[in-house]
């Protein structure tokens, strides 16, 4: 019987609570200008931005879902699918390249498979690992534009830790430290 509209991806209890808690944290009714801070808060708690959470957030903020989605897909730091391992950002921008980032990226590819790309660039709308290796690897890594620490190039951020003058071995050590089994 086709009269019920297809419900959008429903939020899990945990996602719903995360949204409600983030909004409660504002102390006031959410306004549109709270959107980016709320997306940050959700990602900090859930590790990424599940569809259901975004739908619930849109409802709570009285915003059209496509608008929320449009914003979420605009920003490279916002993740629209779950990380499959410890998150590693490796700068391969000009100053880091000049200081060996190209070799570093090459080494990391050999260890962890190809990097994933930011959702905003991909027509498929969802960030995706490019190969089977990437989806199985315990490290979810991507190359990123300049991180603004060029005096210590090459640099990376592994599991939230900023690493300067870094090597593939150094990254592996840092990942072990932050729980990634590398």
């Amino acid at each position, binding site marked *: 019987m086709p009269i019920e*509209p297809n419900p*959008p*991806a429903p939020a899990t209890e945990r996602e719903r609570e995360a949204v409600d808690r983030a909004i409660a944290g504002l102390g006031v009714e959410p306004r549109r200008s709270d959107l980016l801070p709320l997306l940050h808060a959700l990602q900090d708690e859930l590790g990424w931005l599940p569809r259901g959470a975004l739908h619930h957030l849109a409802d709570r903020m009285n915003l059209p879902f*496509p608008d929320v989605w449009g914003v979420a897909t*605009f920003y490279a730091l916002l993740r629209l699918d779950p990380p499959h391992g410890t998150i590693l950002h490796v700068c391969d921008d000009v100053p880091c390249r000049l200081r060996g980032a190209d070799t570093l990226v090459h080494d990391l590819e050999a260890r962890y498979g190809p990097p994933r790309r930011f959702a905003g*660039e*991909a027509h498929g*709308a969802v960030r995706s690992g490019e190969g089977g290796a990437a989806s199985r690897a315990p490290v979810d890594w991507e190359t990123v534009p300049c991180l603004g620490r060029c005096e210590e190039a090459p640099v990376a951020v592994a599991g939230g830790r900023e690493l300067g003058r870094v090597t593939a071995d150094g990254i592996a050590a840092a990942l072990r430290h932050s729980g990634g089994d590398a």
Partner: protein
Amino acid sequence: MSIGIEVDGRALEADEGMTILQALRRAGMDAPTLCYHPNLTPVNVCRACVVEVEGSRALVPSCSRRVEPGMRIRTDTGRVRRARKVVLELLASSVDTSTAPELAAHVAAYQGDPARFGSDAVRVDEPLRDDNDLYVRDYAKCILCYKCVEACGEDAQYTFALAVAGRGFAARIETGADAPLLESRCVFCGNCVAVCPTGALMPLIEHRMRQAGEWDPSRQHVAETICPYCGVGCALELHVQDNRIVKVTSPADHDVTRGHLCVKGRFGFTYVHPDPPSR
């Protein structure tokens, strides 16, 4: 209030609040436009209508910049021509222009050669979204003029079923998480279809007829009439081919509709030709 401006060395009078484009058109001049629509807020993203304004470092979009007293404008300098030509070439090199006569005409007018970027130039590569019975979305033809977003949103419908997602060359029009239209907020007014300049949004009937090679504008005539549904009195243009209504539009300059219709007015005509063809 009247304002004196100068265009290509010629003194013109414009009204306060007018855009440069409006002033040009009133004086019988023009600039190519794609994202501009008289009933939508100018978003000035296609940049095909740029002109030179004395004192401005960059070229300015004539569709949105308002005239100012004493403004000196040039519409036909080498800079303007080069910018327009390249912009049109860039667009035409990135999408399927087979149902975009306006764009093709502009490219031709500026002697553009979209092929010169090489056969490996990346194009917008999107599958046809044929997910409902009223209209299709072929984003491989989309030039991201934002008109559909505007018509769906604040400029007409307030439905907000569409927004731009992603960014850069991968920016695209979306229902949110690429939901099929029937799962989106869409109310199927088709006002996005009406403002689409490239045929990326197309009524299903027209799409099917084109696929079957049956769509033939040379065999079509347009009859103006009034919508048979509610009491608003929306002006309709019935596109008729072989004694069948094949498409419904509304004139953009009609006071009642400004080109917009609702789902019934735009799509609710098929009872006229029930198949089999007897009532």
